[in-house]
């Protein structure tokens, strides 16, 4: 294989930069003028989101159609269509962005392609109906710079997502890609690089927040004939897709960071552990690895040095517990995905017994840019103990569902109300769950909590890997806690007693409460058992699994008591606690409810008020949906 030298990389960067410069500049320009061939714009680019979410909404067909229309109109030499990674604004996907005027089209369909090309690209006139409408002003916003969703964001880990073509290594190189590696290999010692990482204050983004530089330092101290760099891409929180988006949108940043890590700890072997149900991310990684090998970036004697490195992909079957690093390593070894006690830490004895360094995808994505821009730049962002930014997958009852990246220290309120656009349908905010099944439910009073590792933990939740689910007044907190516990019960490997049996008992108690069969003693047991599980479980999964229960008990105790004492679920979610009755004043005796009741619970003569037999009623809600007179009442 040929050797790629730093000068060669520089050449590629220069030649590829022109196309990228257009995108970068238009991103920083603030122009309201729309461009088009008719206005004399010499060259245009159409960026179309190729993330899993937008692809599910046919974004690949949009690309096809755009290309066809462009060809049909003979402007292929002036207009380029680029498939990029995720833009983050998934609520409004699929997204198409026009360069250089930075027009941000939302919810585009394949049928819109013709209009976009003809009206905007050729005619220079924006397609107004596809522009984002600001819910506050009801006005069209053409440019993402002017959207609240993007205004408070700072994209570092996501710096290339939505900007480059993830399947084109030259795009990445144009964005200074692999320069950090080249500099590290040719100009810095491993110790110097580790030192920069330590000074930057970067902490693990997988959830625990362990300082990355320190981790690398430990792995470096152990001597062995082989060492491994593992990328933990086993993202498993319900509703979270930060890592997936990075791998889909910017796979080379992960590869580059793994190589830098390999250089620092003295390893030549990289392994990416990714769940098999991320086919697009797997595909993009494979393409990226292939391209890097072809260029001579992966292989032996990289940049003419004596450093060699290569990467293999390992597939996980999607067990949540395999995100725990020891379980992940066992899974890669072909064993049952089960955690083992630490110490020994993987740095000492990991994959196949060799020293191993495991980093999460988002952590790795931060590495190259830290080396490029310096530790001081990175540590100037964020709070005292949590530096840089954090990517969150914003979901639930919120207007702007999507992927966001904010500086540490941003408050929950800013995320939910400014970036997220507030609670959907004007409902009242009730809680936000951070950290997925390991996190906690935070309330109104926590909204001004600045986001960093320590503050979230102090508030009774945790940073986790970045899931953030917003709940409104229609959500029952007992049911939510139950939902998360069902998840952890299912995902428990079963190894240690507290997690295997303890979580099951917690779930049984919660189920009892949602069925109106709970007692006040149950609430005590929930608390004491939950605390014992946290205190005694073997791995991170068990040690955090009672968090949703304990935090909701803490913050929504009244709601629990209502379930137990009054048999009421104020959110109307706990079916067993609902009572369906028919208002005799409103009922016209039409019989629609009676006819559609699947359990024959409704009695009554025609044109006379009907009644529901509560013992037969299965609370399916069919009568309510069929009543034209709003006569069915639910308590």
């Amino acid at each position, binding site marked *: 294989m040929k050797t790629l030298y730093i000068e060669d990389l520089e050449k590629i960067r220069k030649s590829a930069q022109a196309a990228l410069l257009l995108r970068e500049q238009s991103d920083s320009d603030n122009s309201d003028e729309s461009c088009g061939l008719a206005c004399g714009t010499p060259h245009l680019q159409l960026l179309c989101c190729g993330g899993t979410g937008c692809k599910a909404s046919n974004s690949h067909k949009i690309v096809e159609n755009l290309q066809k229309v462009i060809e049909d109109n003979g402007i292929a030499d002036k207009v380029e269509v680029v498939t990029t990674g995720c833009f983050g604004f998934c609520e409004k996907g699929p997204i198409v962005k026009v360069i250089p005027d930075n027009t941000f089209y939302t919810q585009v369909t394949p049928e819109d392609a013709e209009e976009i090309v003809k009206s905007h690209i050729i005619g220079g006139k924006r397609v107004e109906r596809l522009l984002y409408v600001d819910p506050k002003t009801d006005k069209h916003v053409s440019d993402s710079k002017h959207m609240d969703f993007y205004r408070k964001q700072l994209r570092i880990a996501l710096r290339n997502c939505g900007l480059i073509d993830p399947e084109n290594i030259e795009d990445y190189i144009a964005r200074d890609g692999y320069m950090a590696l080249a500099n590290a290999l040719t100009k810095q010692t491993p110790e110097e690089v580790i030192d920069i990482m330590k000074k930057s204050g970067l902490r693990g983004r997988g959830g625990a927040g362990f300082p990355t530089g320190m981790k690398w330092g430990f792995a470096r101290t152990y001597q062995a004939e082989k060492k491994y760099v593992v990328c933990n891409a086993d993202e498993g929180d319900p509703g979270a897709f930060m890592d997936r988006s990075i791998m889909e949108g910017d796979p080379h940043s992960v590869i580059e960071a793994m190589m830098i890590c390999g250089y620092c700890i003295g390893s030549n072997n990289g392994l990416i552990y990714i769940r098999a149900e991320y086919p697009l991310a797997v595909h993009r990684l494979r393409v990226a690895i292939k391209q890097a090998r072809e260029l001579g970036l992966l292989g032996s004697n990289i940049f003419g040095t004596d450093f060699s490195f290569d990467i293999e992909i390992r597939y996980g079957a999607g*067990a949540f517990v395999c995100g725990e690093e020891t379980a992940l390593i066992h899974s890669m070894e072909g064993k*049952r995905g*089960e955690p*083992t*006690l630490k*110490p020994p830490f993987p740095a000492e004895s990991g994959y196949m017994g060799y020293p191993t360094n495991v980093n999460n995808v988002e952590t790795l994505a931060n590495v190259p840019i830290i080396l490029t821009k310096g530790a001081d730049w990175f540590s100037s962002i964020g709070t005292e103990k949590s530096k840089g930014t954090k990517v969150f997958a914003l979901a639930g009852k919120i207007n702007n569902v999507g992927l966001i990246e904010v500086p540490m220290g941003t408050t929950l309120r800013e995320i939910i109300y400014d970036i997220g656009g507030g609670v959907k349908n004007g409902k009242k905010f009730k809680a936000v769950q951070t950290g997925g099944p390991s996190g906690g439910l935070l309330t109104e009073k926590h909204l001004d909590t600045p986001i960093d590792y320590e503050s979230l933990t102090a508030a009774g939740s945790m940073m986790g890997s970045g899931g953030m689910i917003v709940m409104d007044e229609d959500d029952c907190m007992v049911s939510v806690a139950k939902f998360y516990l069902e998840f952890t*019960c*299912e*995902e*428990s*490997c*079963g*190894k*240690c*007693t*507290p997690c*295997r*049996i*303890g*979580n*099951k*008992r917690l779930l*049984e108690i919660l189920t009892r409460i949602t069925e109106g069969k709970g007692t006040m003693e149950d609430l005590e*047991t929930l608390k*004491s*058992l939950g605390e*014992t599980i*946290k*205190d*005694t*479980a*073997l791995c991170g999964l068990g*040690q955090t699994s009672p968090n949703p229960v304990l935090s909701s008990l803490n913050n929504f105790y009244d709601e629990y008591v209502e379930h137990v004492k009054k048999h009421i679920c104020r959110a109307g979610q706990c079916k067993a606690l609902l009572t369906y009755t028919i208002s005799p004043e409103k009922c016209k005796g039409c019989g629609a409810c009676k006819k559609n009741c699947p359990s024959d619970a409704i009695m009554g003569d025609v044109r006379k008020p009907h009644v529901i037999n509560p013992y037969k009623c299965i609370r399916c809600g069919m009568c309510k949906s069929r009543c034209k007179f709003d006569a069915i009442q639910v308590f």
Partner: protein
Amino acid sequence: MEEKKIQLTIDRHVVEVNPDMTLLEAAKTIGIEIPTLCHIDLKGTCVQNKPASCRLCVVEVEGRRNLAPACATKCTPGMVVYTNSARVIRARKTIAELILSDHPNDCLTCPKCSNCELQRLVMRLNIREMPFNGGEQSVRKNELTVAIKRNMDKCIYCRRCESICNNVQSVGVLGAVRRGFNTTIAPTFDKMFTDTNCTYCGQCVAVCPVGALTERDYTDQLMRDITDPDKVVVAQPAPAIRYALGEEFGMEPGTVVTGKLATALRDLGFDYVFDTDFGADLTIMEEGAEILSRLQRHLDGDKTVKLPIMTSCCPAWVNFYEHEFPDLLDYPSSAKSPGQMFGAIAKTYWAEKMGIPREKLVVVSIMPCLAKKFECARDEFKVDGNPDVDYSISTRELARLIKRANIRFEQLPDSDFDSPLGESTGAGAIFAASGGVMEAALRTVYEVHTGKTLPHINFEQVRGLEEGIREATIDLNGFELKVCVAHTLSNARKIMDRLRAGKLDYHVVEVMACPGGCIGGAGQPYHHGNIEILKARQRAVYQEDEGKKLRKSHENPDIQKLYAEFLGKPMSEKAHHLLHTSYHDKSIH
């Protein structure tokens, strides 16, 4: 060089220990016994299970966020540890309650009652209520094989059996199946033992802390046969029984109870009480002759002779090589095990002599072993469907029978075994320990081959408990006989892999499946992880040997008589027919 000690504080006591010690071990040095359940460590051997998964041994360590498992947490200088703080006691109690909430409530009729480690723990933790009672109980597959009973509803998921099956025996039948609350320890895909390459070594039973894995009980069948006036019931206790049975009656481990054993068997109603040690001596005659014959061929330059010759007394080992090494079946000796040789002789030579028809004669072996239950049921060892050994009971089953028959074992007078199948030598007695068969064979092989009397009767080189594989070279009139002794099947696998690779240059190899040989057999009184018990039994074995007038199998007068009257000479046609067997490919892959 003396290792540098470190200081830490446990329950306000300052303790000085080696830095590689766990908190559990450190606490033990000052008399603090932290409860454990999943943990087992037969010190010095490979029998270990340290998954730190039951979490009952958790302790409080100052400065640590959560509680630490004492069994797996190493001591560090200046550590301040509490093993009995309110927080620890509460957590420990809750964990025990959780285990109980998924464990059947049938202690009174459980075969492990009073021998159950969970039961002891619950008593110790003073649990008087079942707070999580009424929760769902996990339902798992149960099975009754010819040797082992699986009642997995009782499994507490300590995974000792899994560690033994995989790490100690390398058989790999048991593993975790399914996840979370529904996890079970079972063969892959939740298959039955009978569909796997389980060797029935029973070491999973030997370490199970609860009643999930137990031996199949044949005591009721035995009592039916004894009380049947039409049947003549004959007992043959294995060598290893007499060194361990006393433990079941509160006697010191290592107490030799040969005489009491014979009396107890008679009191139970056995018509004749013979001794498997006789069968052991007979085995040496046959196996010794086979060793000599193969050696002679080797010395004569015969390249086709299969060496090393391997012992074949251990039925789990036989199962192991039939399952896993079907290409190497001509290496093991064709000699049957002592118990099966005894049965074959009892049902022919002796039965004819006594005029007892075969179908009325019931031969019962009392074995330290569970694989023997499987062995005596093999078709190879039946004549017209009638087995040479009708069934086999374990040391523990015999102890239960004795207790039920109101016999105060420890006060019994001694008596002798019946003649003629009760006479034995020290060579038969040492079959109970790993290395014993080898030593017994060497005593005979040496004297027969060289024609000289052994200058030193003991072959200390082949004795031992802790080393998994031992080697020795014996001078046979100038010929260097290289021998090897292995115990546990993982060590046997190492030998077999080397044999398969053509890298083995021994002449004779002894293999026993259980740690320490039959003294550590799966039918013996439970050792509960205490290596001292095995050591005491081993000492007793050699002590019994030293006390014997005759210590070489070929000097046994009853054996000599048997050959003179019935068999002719070792490896004669008759001997071949009655005392030898063949092996079959039973690989399941």
